[in-house]
Protein backbone atom coordinates (compact mmCIF):
# COMPACT_ATOMS: atom_id res chain seq x y z
CA UNK A 1 0.00 0.00 0.00
CA UNK A 2 1.27 3.46 -0.98
CA UNK A 3 -0.41 6.57 0.41
CA UNK A 4 0.49 10.17 -0.38
CA UNK A 5 -1.47 12.83 1.48
CA UNK A 6 -1.20 16.54 0.62
CA UNK A 7 2.30 16.13 -0.78
CA UNK A 8 4.08 19.30 -1.86
CA UNK A 9 7.69 19.45 -2.92
CA UNK A 10 8.97 22.98 -3.30
CA UNK A 11 12.52 23.55 -4.62
CA UNK A 12 12.64 27.37 -4.70
CA UNK A 13 10.10 30.10 -3.97
CA UNK A 14 8.42 29.71 -7.38
CA UNK A 15 9.49 26.18 -8.30
CA UNK A 16 7.36 23.23 -7.30
CA UNK A 17 8.02 19.58 -8.06
CA UNK A 18 4.63 18.49 -6.74
CA UNK A 19 1.70 20.44 -5.31
CA UNK A 20 -0.92 19.07 -2.91
CA UNK A 21 -0.81 15.56 -4.37
CA UNK A 22 -3.07 12.90 -2.87
CA UNK A 23 -2.58 9.39 -4.18
CA UNK A 24 -3.57 6.01 -2.83
CA UNK A 25 -2.25 2.82 -4.44
CA UNK A 26 -3.50 -0.49 -3.17
CA UNK A 27 -1.33 -3.57 -2.75
CA UNK A 28 -1.04 -5.49 -6.02
CA UNK A 29 -2.03 -2.59 -8.27
CA UNK A 30 -0.24 -1.68 -11.53
CA UNK A 31 -0.28 2.11 -11.85
CA UNK A 32 1.16 4.10 -14.73
CA UNK A 33 2.12 7.70 -13.99
CA UNK A 34 2.30 9.82 -17.13
CA UNK A 35 2.90 13.45 -17.88
CA UNK A 36 5.09 15.80 -19.88
CA UNK A 37 8.66 16.54 -18.90
CA UNK A 38 8.91 18.69 -15.79
CA UNK A 39 5.50 17.75 -14.43
CA UNK A 40 6.85 16.09 -11.30
CA UNK A 41 7.21 12.42 -12.30
CA UNK A 42 10.88 12.19 -11.28
CA UNK A 43 10.12 14.09 -8.07
CA UNK A 44 7.44 11.51 -7.30
CA UNK A 45 9.94 8.66 -7.80
CA UNK A 46 12.54 10.38 -5.60
CA UNK A 47 9.96 10.82 -2.84
CA UNK A 48 8.87 7.18 -3.11
CA UNK A 49 12.43 5.89 -2.66
CA UNK A 50 13.26 8.45 0.06
CA UNK A 51 15.89 10.11 -2.08
CA UNK A 52 14.17 13.39 -1.24
CA UNK A 53 11.75 14.47 1.47
CA UNK A 54 8.54 16.40 0.79
CA UNK A 55 8.19 20.02 1.87
CA UNK A 56 4.68 19.25 3.17
CA UNK A 57 2.46 16.20 3.50
CA UNK A 58 2.78 12.56 4.50
CA UNK A 59 3.94 9.47 2.62
CA UNK A 60 3.23 5.99 3.93
CA UNK A 61 4.62 2.98 2.10
CA UNK A 62 4.10 -0.54 3.40
CA UNK A 63 4.12 0.44 7.05
CA UNK A 64 6.90 3.04 6.72
CA UNK A 65 6.26 6.72 7.39
CA UNK A 66 8.64 7.89 4.69
CA UNK A 67 8.21 11.55 5.63
CA UNK A 68 9.70 10.98 9.04
CA UNK A 69 12.13 8.21 8.14
CA UNK A 70 15.53 8.52 9.78
CA UNK A 71 18.65 8.52 7.60
CA UNK A 72 19.89 5.31 9.19
CA UNK A 73 16.60 3.53 8.30
CA UNK A 74 16.63 4.51 4.62
CA UNK A 75 18.82 1.55 3.51
CA UNK A 76 16.46 -0.84 5.30
CA UNK A 77 13.44 0.81 3.66
CA UNK A 78 15.03 0.68 0.19
CA UNK A 79 15.70 -3.03 0.52
CA UNK A 80 11.91 -3.50 0.60
CA UNK A 81 11.30 -1.62 -2.63
CA UNK A 82 12.57 -2.64 -6.05
CA UNK A 83 13.65 0.28 -8.20
CA UNK A 84 14.15 0.18 -11.98
CA UNK A 85 15.85 3.12 -13.65
CA UNK A 86 15.88 4.31 -17.24
CA UNK A 87 19.69 4.50 -17.21
CA UNK A 88 19.91 1.04 -15.58
CA UNK A 89 22.31 2.09 -12.79
CA UNK A 90 24.29 -1.13 -12.87
CA UNK A 91 27.67 -1.42 -11.18
CA UNK A 92 29.98 -1.41 -14.19
CA UNK A 93 32.85 -3.24 -12.47
CA UNK A 94 30.64 -6.10 -11.33
CA UNK A 95 29.32 -8.98 -13.40
CA UNK A 96 25.62 -9.63 -13.96
CA UNK A 97 25.63 -12.19 -11.14
CA UNK A 98 27.47 -9.81 -8.80
CA UNK A 99 25.11 -6.92 -9.59
CA UNK A 100 22.10 -8.98 -8.64
CA UNK A 101 23.85 -10.53 -5.64
CA UNK A 102 24.84 -7.08 -4.38
CA UNK A 103 21.21 -6.25 -3.48
CA UNK A 104 21.23 -9.29 -1.18
CA UNK A 105 24.75 -8.75 0.12
CA UNK A 106 23.92 -5.25 1.41
CA UNK A 107 21.09 -6.83 3.37
CA UNK A 108 23.49 -9.30 4.99
CA UNK A 109 21.95 -12.39 3.38
CA UNK A 110 23.96 -15.62 3.86
CA UNK A 111 26.28 -16.78 1.08
CA UNK A 112 24.33 -19.99 0.45
CA UNK A 113 21.01 -18.20 -0.02
CA UNK A 114 22.62 -15.76 -2.46
CA UNK A 115 24.20 -18.63 -4.42
CA UNK A 116 20.80 -20.32 -4.67
CA UNK A 117 18.57 -17.32 -5.44
CA UNK A 118 20.61 -15.26 -7.92
CA UNK A 119 20.73 -17.86 -10.76
CA UNK A 120 17.00 -18.52 -10.33
CA UNK A 121 16.09 -14.83 -10.63
CA UNK A 122 18.40 -14.43 -13.63
CA UNK A 123 16.69 -17.42 -15.25
CA UNK A 124 13.32 -15.71 -14.74
CA UNK A 125 14.50 -12.67 -16.74
CA UNK A 126 16.19 -14.93 -19.32
CA UNK A 127 19.80 -14.14 -18.48
CA UNK A 128 20.84 -17.36 -16.76
CA UNK A 129 23.41 -17.97 -19.49
CA UNK A 130 25.01 -14.52 -19.24
CA UNK A 131 25.67 -14.37 -15.49
CA UNK A 132 29.41 -13.81 -15.78
CA UNK A 133 29.26 -11.00 -18.29
CA UNK A 134 29.82 -7.36 -17.40
CA UNK A 135 27.07 -4.77 -18.08
CA UNK A 136 28.94 -3.28 -21.06
CA UNK A 137 28.88 -6.73 -22.71
CA UNK A 138 25.06 -6.72 -22.74
CA UNK A 139 22.45 -4.98 -24.93
CA UNK A 140 20.22 -2.27 -23.45
CA UNK A 141 17.32 -4.68 -23.10
CA UNK A 142 19.52 -7.23 -21.34
CA UNK A 143 20.88 -4.60 -18.99
CA UNK A 144 17.33 -3.58 -18.09
CA UNK A 145 16.51 -7.22 -17.40
CA UNK A 146 19.47 -7.37 -15.02
CA UNK A 147 18.06 -4.31 -13.24
CA UNK A 148 14.67 -6.05 -12.98
CA UNK A 149 16.38 -9.15 -11.59
CA UNK A 150 18.21 -7.01 -9.05
CA UNK A 151 14.99 -5.28 -8.00
CA UNK A 152 13.20 -8.64 -7.71
CA UNK A 153 15.85 -10.57 -5.86
CA UNK A 154 14.78 -9.58 -2.36
CA UNK A 155 11.11 -10.18 -3.20
CA UNK A 156 9.86 -6.62 -2.76
CA UNK A 157 6.18 -5.85 -2.26
CA UNK A 158 6.54 -2.73 -4.43
CA UNK A 159 8.50 -2.03 -7.61
CA UNK A 160 9.01 1.54 -8.76
CA UNK A 161 9.99 1.76 -12.43
CA UNK A 162 11.25 5.10 -13.75
CA UNK A 163 11.02 5.08 -17.56
CA UNK A 164 12.22 1.46 -17.72
CA UNK A 165 11.76 1.31 -21.50
CA UNK A 166 13.05 4.81 -22.23
CA UNK A 167 16.32 3.57 -23.75
CA UNK A 168 14.96 0.44 -25.44
CA UNK A 169 13.67 -0.47 -28.89
CA UNK A 170 10.09 -1.75 -29.36
CA UNK A 171 11.00 -5.45 -29.11
CA UNK A 172 12.94 -5.00 -25.88
CA UNK A 173 10.20 -2.70 -24.57
CA UNK A 174 7.66 -5.44 -25.16
CA UNK A 175 9.83 -8.00 -23.35
CA UNK A 176 10.36 -5.76 -20.35
CA UNK A 177 6.66 -4.98 -20.07
CA UNK A 178 5.81 -8.69 -20.23
CA UNK A 179 8.19 -9.33 -17.33
CA UNK A 180 6.66 -6.47 -15.31
CA UNK A 181 3.16 -7.80 -15.96
CA UNK A 182 4.23 -11.26 -14.76
CA UNK A 183 5.71 -9.76 -11.61
CA UNK A 184 2.48 -7.86 -11.00
CA UNK A 185 0.49 -11.04 -11.55
CA UNK A 186 2.32 -12.55 -8.56
CA UNK A 187 0.96 -9.73 -6.39
CA UNK A 188 3.72 -7.13 -6.49
CA UNK A 189 2.57 -3.50 -6.66
CA UNK A 190 4.08 -1.70 -9.64
CA UNK A 191 4.39 2.05 -10.10
CA UNK A 192 5.44 2.73 -13.68
CA UNK A 193 6.52 6.21 -14.73
CA UNK A 194 6.63 6.43 -18.51
CA UNK A 195 6.36 8.56 -21.63
CA UNK A 196 5.54 5.57 -23.79
CA UNK A 197 1.98 5.90 -25.09
CA UNK A 198 1.85 2.36 -26.55
CA UNK A 199 3.02 0.79 -23.32
CA UNK A 200 0.34 2.54 -21.26
CA UNK A 201 -2.43 1.88 -23.76
CA UNK A 202 -1.63 -1.83 -24.03
CA UNK A 203 -1.59 -2.26 -20.27
CA UNK A 204 -5.23 -1.17 -19.74
CA UNK A 205 -4.43 -0.55 -16.09
CA UNK A 206 -4.77 2.46 -13.80
CA UNK A 207 -3.30 5.69 -15.27
CA UNK A 208 -2.46 8.81 -13.24
CA UNK A 209 -1.73 11.98 -15.20
CA UNK A 210 0.48 14.68 -13.73
CA UNK A 211 0.53 18.27 -14.94
CA UNK A 212 2.52 21.10 -13.33
CA UNK A 213 3.02 19.02 -10.22
CA UNK A 214 -0.67 18.19 -9.75
CA UNK A 215 -2.74 15.10 -10.49
CA UNK A 216 -5.18 16.12 -13.20
CA UNK A 217 -6.56 12.67 -14.00
CA UNK A 218 -6.71 9.27 -12.30
CA UNK A 219 -8.50 6.49 -14.21
CA UNK A 220 -8.92 2.88 -13.12
CA UNK A 221 -8.54 1.49 -16.69
CA UNK A 222 -7.11 4.50 -18.45
CA UNK A 223 -5.25 5.36 -21.60
CA UNK A 224 -2.36 7.69 -22.28
CA UNK A 225 -3.43 11.34 -22.47
CA UNK A 226 -1.80 14.46 -21.15
CA UNK A 227 -4.88 16.56 -20.31
CA UNK A 228 -7.80 16.16 -17.96
CA UNK A 229 -10.75 14.16 -19.31
Amino acid sequence: MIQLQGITKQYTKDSFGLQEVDLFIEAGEFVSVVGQSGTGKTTLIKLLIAEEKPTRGDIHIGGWDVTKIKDRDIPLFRRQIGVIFQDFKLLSKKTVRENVAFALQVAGEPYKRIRDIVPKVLDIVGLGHKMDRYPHQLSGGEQQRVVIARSLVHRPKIIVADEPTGNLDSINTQEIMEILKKINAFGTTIVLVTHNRDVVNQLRKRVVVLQEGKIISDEKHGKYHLSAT
Partner: protein
Amino acid sequence: MYSFFRIISFAFQDMVRNIGLSCMTVFILILMLLSMNTLLFIRLVTTEATATVRDQIDVTVFLSDEATGDEVDEVYTYISSLPEVTQAVFKSSDEVLADFRELYKQNADILSSLDELNENPLGATIIIKTTSPADYATIIEQLSVPEYDTIVESKTFTDAQGAIEKIDAITTSIEKFSVALTAFFGIIAFLIIFNTVRVAIYTQRVEISIKKLVGATNWFVRGPYICESLFFSILSTFIAVVIVYFTIGLLDPYIGVVLGNNTFLTNYYISHILSLAGVQFGIVFFLTLVSSMLAMRRYLRV
Protein backbone atom coordinates in the same frame (compact mmCIF):
# COMPACT_ATOMS: atom_id res chain seq x y z
CA MET B 1 29.94 -10.92 10.18
CA TYR B 2 28.90 -11.60 6.56
CA SER B 3 29.11 -7.87 5.89
CA PHE B 4 32.63 -7.64 7.33
CA PHE B 5 34.02 -10.33 5.04
CA ARG B 6 32.07 -8.93 2.09
CA ILE B 7 33.53 -5.47 2.67
CA ILE B 8 37.06 -6.93 2.61
CA SER B 9 36.26 -9.00 -0.45
CA PHE B 10 34.76 -5.93 -2.26
CA ALA B 11 37.84 -3.90 -1.37
CA PHE B 12 40.18 -6.40 -3.03
CA GLN B 13 37.81 -6.81 -5.96
CA ASP B 14 37.72 -3.02 -6.47
CA MET B 15 41.50 -2.75 -6.24
CA VAL B 16 42.04 -5.46 -8.84
CA ARG B 17 39.34 -4.21 -11.19
CA ASN B 18 40.61 -0.61 -10.89
CA ILE B 19 44.22 -1.70 -11.06
CA GLY B 20 45.40 1.44 -12.90
CA LEU B 21 43.91 3.76 -10.32
CA SER B 22 45.17 1.57 -7.47
CA CYS B 23 48.73 1.61 -8.84
CA MET B 24 48.63 5.38 -9.32
CA THR B 25 47.43 5.93 -5.73
CA VAL B 26 50.16 3.67 -4.31
CA PHE B 27 52.77 5.36 -6.51
CA ILE B 28 51.81 8.83 -5.22
CA LEU B 29 51.87 7.58 -1.63
CA ILE B 30 55.35 6.10 -2.16
CA LEU B 31 56.60 9.41 -3.59
CA MET B 32 55.26 11.24 -0.56
CA LEU B 33 56.90 8.77 1.83
CA LEU B 34 60.22 9.05 -0.01
CA SER B 35 60.02 12.85 0.35
CA MET B 36 59.39 12.44 4.08
CA ASN B 37 62.34 10.05 4.39
CA THR B 38 64.62 12.41 2.45
CA LEU B 39 63.75 15.17 4.88
CA LEU B 40 64.31 12.91 7.86
CA PHE B 41 67.75 11.83 6.67
CA ILE B 42 68.85 15.36 5.75
CA ARG B 43 68.02 16.37 9.29
CA LEU B 44 69.67 13.29 10.75
CA VAL B 45 72.91 13.78 8.82
CA THR B 46 73.17 17.49 9.61
CA THR B 47 72.47 16.87 13.29
CA GLU B 48 75.06 14.10 13.40
CA ALA B 49 77.61 16.18 11.49
CA THR B 50 77.29 19.11 13.89
CA ALA B 51 77.41 16.71 16.85
CA THR B 52 80.61 15.20 15.43
CA VAL B 53 82.21 18.63 15.12
CA ARG B 54 81.03 19.58 18.62
CA ASP B 55 82.49 16.36 19.93
CA GLN B 56 85.86 17.25 18.52
CA ILE B 57 85.91 20.50 20.50
CA ASP B 58 87.04 20.41 24.10
CA VAL B 59 88.89 22.39 26.70
CA THR B 60 92.41 21.26 27.33
CA VAL B 61 93.94 22.39 30.58
CA PHE B 62 97.75 22.24 30.52
CA LEU B 63 99.16 21.76 33.97
CA SER B 64 102.50 23.16 35.06
CA ASP B 65 105.27 20.55 35.17
CA GLU B 66 106.09 21.96 38.60
CA ALA B 67 102.68 21.08 40.01
CA THR B 68 102.75 18.40 42.70
CA GLY B 69 100.71 15.23 42.55
CA ASP B 70 98.37 16.51 45.26
CA GLU B 71 97.79 19.79 43.45
CA VAL B 72 97.05 17.95 40.21
CA ASP B 73 94.62 15.65 42.06
CA GLU B 74 92.90 18.65 43.62
CA VAL B 75 92.39 20.38 40.25
CA TYR B 76 91.19 17.13 38.63
CA THR B 77 88.73 16.45 41.46
CA TYR B 78 87.46 20.02 41.34
CA ILE B 79 86.93 19.89 37.57
CA SER B 80 85.21 16.50 37.75
CA SER B 81 82.81 17.80 40.42
CA LEU B 82 81.53 20.65 38.25
CA PRO B 83 77.94 19.90 37.12
CA GLU B 84 78.61 21.07 33.52
CA VAL B 85 81.43 18.55 33.03
CA THR B 86 80.48 15.28 31.35
CA GLN B 87 84.01 13.93 30.98
CA ALA B 88 87.42 14.87 32.36
CA VAL B 89 90.39 12.81 31.18
CA PHE B 90 93.69 13.20 32.99
CA LYS B 91 96.87 12.51 31.04
CA SER B 92 100.20 12.36 32.80
CA SER B 93 103.22 14.09 31.29
CA ASP B 94 104.50 10.68 30.07
CA GLU B 95 101.20 9.97 28.32
CA VAL B 96 101.23 13.44 26.78
CA LEU B 97 104.76 12.82 25.54
CA ALA B 98 103.74 9.45 24.08
CA ASP B 99 100.77 11.07 22.30
CA PHE B 100 103.06 13.81 21.00
CA ARG B 101 105.54 11.27 19.63
CA GLU B 102 102.68 9.33 17.99
CA LEU B 103 101.31 12.50 16.43
CA TYR B 104 104.67 13.50 14.94
CA LYS B 105 106.05 10.06 14.20
CA GLN B 106 106.48 11.01 10.53
CA ASN B 107 108.43 14.15 11.40
CA ALA B 108 112.00 13.16 12.19
CA ASP B 109 113.13 16.76 12.91
CA ILE B 110 110.63 17.23 15.72
CA LEU B 111 111.37 13.83 17.22
CA SER B 112 115.14 14.39 17.13
CA SER B 113 114.72 17.83 18.73
CA LEU B 114 112.73 16.14 21.46
CA ASP B 115 115.47 13.57 21.94
CA GLU B 116 118.02 16.35 22.30
CA LEU B 117 116.30 17.36 25.50
CA ASN B 118 117.09 14.94 28.22
CA GLU B 119 113.87 15.49 30.07
CA ASN B 120 110.15 15.57 29.23
CA PRO B 121 109.25 19.21 28.50
CA LEU B 122 105.52 18.55 28.45
CA GLY B 123 103.33 18.83 31.50
CA ALA B 124 100.24 16.80 32.38
CA THR B 125 96.90 17.81 30.84
CA ILE B 126 93.23 17.45 31.65
CA ILE B 127 90.85 17.18 28.63
CA ILE B 128 87.34 18.35 29.51
CA LYS B 129 84.04 17.84 27.72
CA THR B 130 80.82 19.55 28.82
CA THR B 131 77.12 19.04 28.21
CA SER B 132 76.98 22.14 26.00
CA PRO B 133 79.66 24.18 24.21
CA ALA B 134 78.28 27.22 26.03
CA ASP B 135 79.60 25.68 29.29
CA TYR B 136 83.23 25.95 28.19
CA ALA B 137 83.35 29.63 29.13
CA THR B 138 82.03 28.78 32.63
CA ILE B 139 84.72 26.11 33.11
CA ILE B 140 87.47 28.51 32.04
CA GLU B 141 86.10 31.16 34.39
CA GLN B 142 86.03 28.73 37.31
CA LEU B 143 89.64 27.70 36.66
CA SER B 144 90.81 31.31 36.39
CA VAL B 145 91.21 31.80 40.12
CA PRO B 146 94.42 32.82 41.94
CA GLU B 147 94.73 29.43 43.74
CA TYR B 148 95.26 27.67 40.40
CA ASP B 149 97.55 30.29 38.79
CA THR B 150 100.66 28.28 39.58
CA ILE B 151 99.14 24.91 38.75
CA VAL B 152 97.28 25.65 35.47
CA GLU B 153 99.68 26.78 32.81
CA SER B 154 97.23 27.47 29.99
CA LYS B 155 93.76 26.65 28.64
CA THR B 156 92.94 26.17 24.92
CA PHE B 157 89.31 27.14 24.83
CA THR B 158 89.72 30.53 23.13
CA ASP B 159 90.69 28.94 19.78
CA ALA B 160 87.54 26.78 19.71
CA GLN B 161 85.09 29.46 20.76
CA GLY B 162 84.63 30.87 17.25
CA ALA B 163 84.04 27.38 15.83
CA ILE B 164 81.45 26.64 18.51
CA GLU B 165 79.59 29.87 17.81
CA LYS B 166 79.60 29.09 14.08
CA ILE B 167 78.31 25.57 14.69
CA ASP B 168 75.57 26.92 16.95
CA ALA B 169 74.53 29.38 14.27
CA ILE B 170 74.58 26.69 11.53
CA THR B 171 72.64 24.22 13.68
CA THR B 172 69.99 26.80 14.54
CA SER B 173 69.60 27.73 10.85
CA ILE B 174 69.37 24.10 9.77
CA GLU B 175 66.75 23.39 12.42
CA LYS B 176 64.66 26.40 11.35
CA PHE B 177 64.99 25.36 7.69
CA SER B 178 64.05 21.77 8.54
CA VAL B 179 60.91 22.87 10.37
CA ALA B 180 59.88 25.07 7.43
CA LEU B 181 60.67 22.27 4.95
CA THR B 182 58.74 19.73 7.04
CA ALA B 183 55.70 22.02 7.15
CA PHE B 184 55.98 22.64 3.40
CA PHE B 185 56.27 18.92 2.60
CA GLY B 186 53.40 18.17 4.97
CA ILE B 187 51.06 20.57 3.17
CA ILE B 188 52.15 19.30 -0.29
CA ALA B 189 51.73 15.68 0.85
CA PHE B 190 48.25 16.34 2.22
CA LEU B 191 47.17 18.10 -0.98
CA ILE B 192 48.58 15.35 -3.20
CA ILE B 193 46.97 12.56 -1.21
CA PHE B 194 43.69 14.42 -0.80
CA ASN B 195 43.41 15.08 -4.53
CA THR B 196 44.54 11.59 -5.54
CA VAL B 197 41.93 9.99 -3.31
CA ARG B 198 39.33 12.56 -4.42
CA VAL B 199 39.93 11.69 -8.07
CA ALA B 200 39.68 7.98 -7.21
CA ILE B 201 36.38 8.53 -5.39
CA TYR B 202 35.10 10.87 -8.12
CA THR B 203 35.54 8.16 -10.76
CA GLN B 204 33.40 5.89 -8.60
CA ARG B 205 30.72 8.41 -7.60
CA VAL B 206 28.06 6.75 -9.77
CA GLU B 207 28.82 3.37 -8.23
CA ILE B 208 28.55 4.86 -4.75
CA SER B 209 25.10 6.34 -5.48
CA ILE B 210 23.92 3.05 -7.04
CA LYS B 211 25.01 1.13 -3.97
CA LYS B 212 23.03 3.54 -1.82
CA LEU B 213 19.95 3.22 -4.04
CA VAL B 214 19.88 -0.57 -3.71
CA GLY B 215 19.91 -0.30 0.06
CA ALA B 216 23.56 -0.23 1.13
CA THR B 217 24.27 1.55 4.40
CA ASN B 218 26.88 4.32 4.46
CA TRP B 219 29.29 2.00 6.25
CA PHE B 220 28.78 -0.77 3.72
CA VAL B 221 29.75 1.73 1.00
CA ARG B 222 32.60 3.27 3.01
CA GLY B 223 33.97 -0.05 4.26
CA PRO B 224 35.78 -1.12 1.07
CA TYR B 225 37.38 2.33 0.76
CA ILE B 226 38.64 2.12 4.34
CA CYS B 227 40.09 -1.33 3.59
CA GLU B 228 41.66 0.02 0.41
CA SER B 229 43.18 2.95 2.34
CA LEU B 230 44.58 0.46 4.84
CA PHE B 231 45.99 -1.80 2.14
CA PHE B 232 47.45 1.11 0.11
CA SER B 233 49.07 2.47 3.28
CA ILE B 234 50.63 -0.89 4.19
CA LEU B 235 51.83 -1.51 0.63
CA SER B 236 53.24 1.99 0.07
CA THR B 237 54.97 2.00 3.48
CA PHE B 238 56.52 -1.41 2.78
CA ILE B 239 57.78 -0.40 -0.67
CA ALA B 240 59.09 2.94 0.65
CA VAL B 241 60.93 1.16 3.49
CA VAL B 242 62.59 -1.23 1.01
CA ILE B 243 63.57 1.60 -1.37
CA VAL B 244 64.94 3.73 1.48
CA TYR B 245 66.88 0.79 2.93
CA PHE B 246 68.71 0.11 -0.32
CA THR B 247 69.21 3.81 -1.06
CA ILE B 248 70.84 4.57 2.29
CA GLY B 249 73.03 1.50 1.77
CA LEU B 250 74.33 3.21 -1.37
CA LEU B 251 74.70 6.60 0.33
CA ASP B 252 76.36 5.39 3.53
CA PRO B 253 79.96 5.16 2.16
CA TYR B 254 79.76 8.80 0.98
CA ILE B 255 78.26 10.07 4.22
CA GLY B 256 80.79 7.97 6.15
CA VAL B 257 83.54 10.23 4.80
CA VAL B 258 82.02 13.14 6.74
CA LEU B 259 80.80 11.28 9.81
CA GLY B 260 83.58 8.70 10.10
CA ASN B 261 81.07 5.87 10.19
CA ASN B 262 80.36 3.91 7.01
CA THR B 263 77.12 2.40 8.28
CA PHE B 264 75.66 5.36 10.14
CA LEU B 265 72.39 5.66 8.16
CA THR B 266 71.86 1.91 7.84
CA ASN B 267 72.44 1.37 11.57
CA TYR B 268 70.07 4.18 12.43
CA TYR B 269 67.43 2.90 10.01
CA ILE B 270 67.59 -0.69 11.24
CA SER B 271 67.50 0.30 14.90
CA HIS B 272 64.47 2.59 14.32
CA ILE B 273 62.75 0.59 11.58
CA LEU B 274 59.60 -0.21 13.56
CA SER B 275 58.98 3.31 14.81
CA LEU B 276 59.83 4.87 11.42
CA ALA B 277 57.61 2.46 9.47
CA GLY B 278 54.87 2.81 12.09
CA VAL B 279 54.84 6.60 12.00
CA GLN B 280 54.92 6.67 8.18
CA PHE B 281 52.11 4.12 7.96
CA GLY B 282 50.11 6.10 10.52
CA ILE B 283 50.49 9.37 8.61
CA VAL B 284 49.62 7.83 5.23
CA PHE B 285 46.65 5.89 6.61
CA PHE B 286 45.32 8.93 8.44
CA LEU B 287 45.64 11.13 5.33
CA THR B 288 44.08 8.59 2.96
CA LEU B 289 41.29 7.85 5.40
CA VAL B 290 40.42 11.49 6.06
CA SER B 291 40.66 12.31 2.34
CA SER B 292 38.39 9.46 1.29
CA MET B 293 35.85 10.24 4.02
CA LEU B 294 35.74 13.91 3.00
CA ALA B 295 35.63 13.13 -0.72
CA MET B 296 32.92 10.51 -0.33
CA ARG B 297 30.67 12.50 1.96
CA ARG B 298 28.79 14.33 -0.81
CA TYR B 299 28.19 11.17 -2.87
CA LEU B 300 26.70 9.37 0.12
CA ARG B 301 23.86 11.88 0.36
CA VAL B 302 21.56 9.82 -1.89
